């Protein structure tokens, strides 16, 4: 089963951490006698390495020592360019929710989206969504207020 980078690391936190690891790995390539395998093994978890390798395979990027610094930059740049969807919800999302939303967005949008979660208990349930400057509120609180206040 193949995952896109955003599916494997769907949240901003995860992607930021991954991006930091890319930067750390990049620093290791500054040594003259660096070993790409050692760098990848020491910098990423097996799951993360698998995601990286899949991403490089999909985008025809080489993880060979001679290309590793540039590949790390390209991947980091790719992560930076992934559009962000901010989801404000009432409870802390668990892995199941994150996974479900990630897959849903992958299917619905057919493009990478990184999720940023914010917690606001007043919205009760549902979500307030912000994407590229646009905002929509599909919350239970909002629905209740509409029921009460709209004429």
């Amino acid at each position, binding site marked *: 089963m193949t995952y896109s980078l955003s599916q494997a690391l769907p949240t901003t936190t995860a992607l930021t951490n991954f991006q930091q690891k890319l930067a750390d790995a990049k620093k290791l390539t500054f040594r003259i006698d660096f070993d790409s395998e050692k760098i990848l093994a020491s910098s990423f978890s097996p799951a993360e390495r698998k995601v990286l390798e899949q991403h490089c395979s999909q985008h025809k990027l080489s993880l060979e020592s001679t290309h590793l610094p540039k590949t790390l930059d390209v991947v980091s740049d790719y992560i930076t360019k992934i559009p962000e969807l901010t989801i404000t919800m009432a409870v802390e999302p668990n892995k199941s*929710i994150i996974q479900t939303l990630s897959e*849903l967005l992958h299917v619905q949008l057919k493009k990478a989206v990184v999720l940023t979660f914010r917690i606001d208990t007043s919205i*009760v349930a549902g*979500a307030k*969504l912000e994407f590229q400057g646009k905002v929509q509120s*599909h919350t239970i609180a909002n629905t*209740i*207020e509409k029921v009460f*206040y709209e004429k």
Partner: protein
Amino acid sequence: MQESLLLTLLILTNVALFLTAATWLFFLFRREKNVRVLVTIAEKKAEEIITAALEKAAKTVTDAEYLEKSLKEKLEKSVEIAATTITDEGKQSAEALAGAYSTASKNAAATLEDQAVAAFSKVAQDLSTESNEVRRQLDEIVASEHTKLVTELTEYKAERKQEFEQELRKKIQVIITELLPYQITIADQEKLLVAAIKKAHAEGLFN
């Protein structure tokens, strides 16, 4: 004729002679007498003169009285005439004066009336202007007060509405935050999130 004449002449001559003689005799005989006659005559004459003088005097007195009376009458008449004239003139003058005064009075009255009418008209106009000004000011005040009252009422209503909405919102928030979360499971949250994403996609959030 001649005989008559001669006779007459003769007679006349005789008469004349007789008369002459008589006269002479008369004068002779009557010289004394004449003196006495003359005296008498003189006395008589004097008496006549005196009488005449008296008469004349009396007449003069009478005339004087008459004249006095006449003068008096004339004077009275003149006075009467004068009085009448004066009276008439006075009356006429008075009438003329009265007429003049009447005209002057009428003119003065007319002038005064005109002035009064003009003054009254001006006062009426001033009052009208003042009345209009007062009415305009009252209208402005009423409009201002009306606007002010409407504004205050609107603000009061908005304030009350806001207070009511705030109270209602608080209660709803209490329901939302205190009651509903315990009624919504994680599974419900997931379902509602999925529904929200689908709805947002349908409404073009990701376009």
